């Protein structure tokens, strides 16, 4: 039973009456994220923080007493009432006050924890603010330094890096990404919630799903700020699945001529490098037997292999003889064998036993010493090229 068009329209109209408030779905998404992925588990956080603190004390004690670990003092405050330093080694940052107490450690720690710790310090407000700012910059520089493959330097809309440095937060985006699968692209930036995100494809989330190659740029603007300046970064994304149809192929050709080896892939997407002769083209011509390998370079490198052999094509070998004395096919006659003096012929029985051997075959074997059946032959030309096959003897 089906509804007619009129009835379908009526139902559609009725349910179109359901409305949602403006921007409701954005609101819904934010609300749900706050109740799920952004929800903080306070108890485990506390345990984690205390564990971190305990570990930090141990690590720092080692640093202070043994003083072997290479640290750089990157920041220092000192006056009558307080003394502060921020130390950095290759992967950690930590703050010391005059009692050598650790305020913060490790680049993975929570941003709010630093701010809270700094707020508790007995130092002037102005100093606190610059400490927070410096700490954050250091922390993100550190992350950037540790992930140079993924995170690259900043470019502003006018390619002017200074513009971004005026911000209290740098925006890090990889310059280029090559992936065989769709990716999620997002910047490394502290306090993401303080910015509006606008991607070149119109999306406004902090991360975008990319399934097609292209150049994606991101502009971020502070939400609550007097300044209208934006940060801008661009990433070139290449989505390139592994090449298809690669395998090991056996190719044969005639002595004296060339065979063409070609890789059946789109050269506008993949780069080709022949390992034997440094050619970059889709196909090469070869005249020597051997194994030829083409490197196919997409996001990863793949290999296409060709096993090339050559034979004497003017030589024609029969697959059956009838030695009955009628003058037709009575002997194993290899056509044009006379062009190759000193060609060896081996004939084997089914069980692998050698039954005939000639060091210089002259088309004269008549199978008189064997019974009817299937035999194997192997011909070795003076130039070491060999050919083998089966021979049926009918009597």
């Amino acid at each position, binding site marked *: 039973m089906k*509804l007619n068009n009129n009835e379908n329209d009526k139902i559609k109209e*009725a349910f*179109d009456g359901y409305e949602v408030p403006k921007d*409701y*779905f954005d609101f*819904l998404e934010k609300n749900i994220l706050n109740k799920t992925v952004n929800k903080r588990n306070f108890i485990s956080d506390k345990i984690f923080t205390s564990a971190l603190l305990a570990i930090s004390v141990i690590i720092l004690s080692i640093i202070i007493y043994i003083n072997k670990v290479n640290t750089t003092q990157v920041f220092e405050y000192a006056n009558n009432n307080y003394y502060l330093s921020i130390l950095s080694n290759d992967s950690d940052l930590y703050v010391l006050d005059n009692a050598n107490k650790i305020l913060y450690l490790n680049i993975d720690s929570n941003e709010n924890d630093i701010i809270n710790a700094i707020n508790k310090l007995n130092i002037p407000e102005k100093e606190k603010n610059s400490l927070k700012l410096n700490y954050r910059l250091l922390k993100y520089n550190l992350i950037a330094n540790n992930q140079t493959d993924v995170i690259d330097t900043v470019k502003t809309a006018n390619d002017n890096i200074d513009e971004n440095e005026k911000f209290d937060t740098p925006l890090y985006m990889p310059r280029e990404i090559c992936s065989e699968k769709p990716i999620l692209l997002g910047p490394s930036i502290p306090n993401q919630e303080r910015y509006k995100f606008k991607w070149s494809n119109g999306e406004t989330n902090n*991360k975008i*799903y990319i399934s097609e190659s292209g150049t994606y740029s991101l502009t971020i603007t502070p939400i609550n700020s007097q300044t209208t300046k934006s940060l801008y970064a661009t990433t070139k994304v290449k989505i390139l699945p592994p090449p298809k149809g690669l395998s090991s192929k056996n190719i044969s050709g005639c002595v004296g001529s060339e065979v063409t080896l070609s890789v059946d892939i789109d050269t506008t997407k993949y780069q080709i490098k022949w390992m034997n002769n440094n050619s970059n083209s889709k196909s090469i011509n070869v005249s020597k037997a051997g194994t030829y390998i083409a490197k196919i370079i997409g996001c990863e490198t793949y290999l296409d292999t060709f096993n090339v052999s050559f034979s004497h094509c003017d030589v024609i070998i029969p697959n059956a003889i009838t030695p009955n004395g009628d003058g037709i096919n009575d002997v194993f006659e290899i056509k044009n064998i006379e062009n190759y003096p000193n060609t060896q012929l081996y004939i084997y029985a089914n069980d692998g036993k050698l039954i005939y051997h000639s060091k210089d075959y002259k088309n004269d074997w008549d199978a008189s010493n064997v019974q009817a059946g299937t035999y194997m032959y192997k011909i070795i030309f003076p130039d070491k090229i060999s050919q083998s096959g089966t021979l049926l003897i009918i009597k």
Partner: protein
Amino acid sequence: MTDPSDNFIISLFSDSETKTEGFKLLLKKYKEKVYWHVRRLVVSHDDANDVVQNTFIKIWENLDSFHGDSKLYTWIYRIATNESINFINKKKSALFISLDELNENFLDNLKADSNFKGDEIERKLIKAINQLPPKQRLVFYLRYFSNMPYKDIADVLHTSENTLKSSYHQAMKKIKKFFSSTY
């Protein structure tokens, strides 16, 4: 930009580092579909809002127990449907009224809903559909509005396809009848 495939989303769940991103994509892809499904079941926007949020919280909390035995989308619809039914039942028992009254007062509370702009006849039509027995109503909504194949509806509602087909047929019959008597 096309939505990511369910398989891609599921592949993100397996890694604790990408799980969050997977959920965000899931939310983005399904928030509107789930909302409208729930809205048709519970009628008022405010109620739908509550139920949808609970649905996605449940999905987030149970992500680890999703092993791909069923399709991702039928799993989501199943949670949304169960949340809606639980909500309706809770509201029903909280109000201490009969099912008929419930339909009058609750599923037909369109008059009070500022988020409904239809006219009187359209209200009546929705009321008629909402007066279908629960199973017929569910099948009708899933089949008619979400274009779900019977096989997937069976997965969502845990019933056999044949039962569903006959429920859908019954629902259609009643809606036809409503049309012939009203227009």
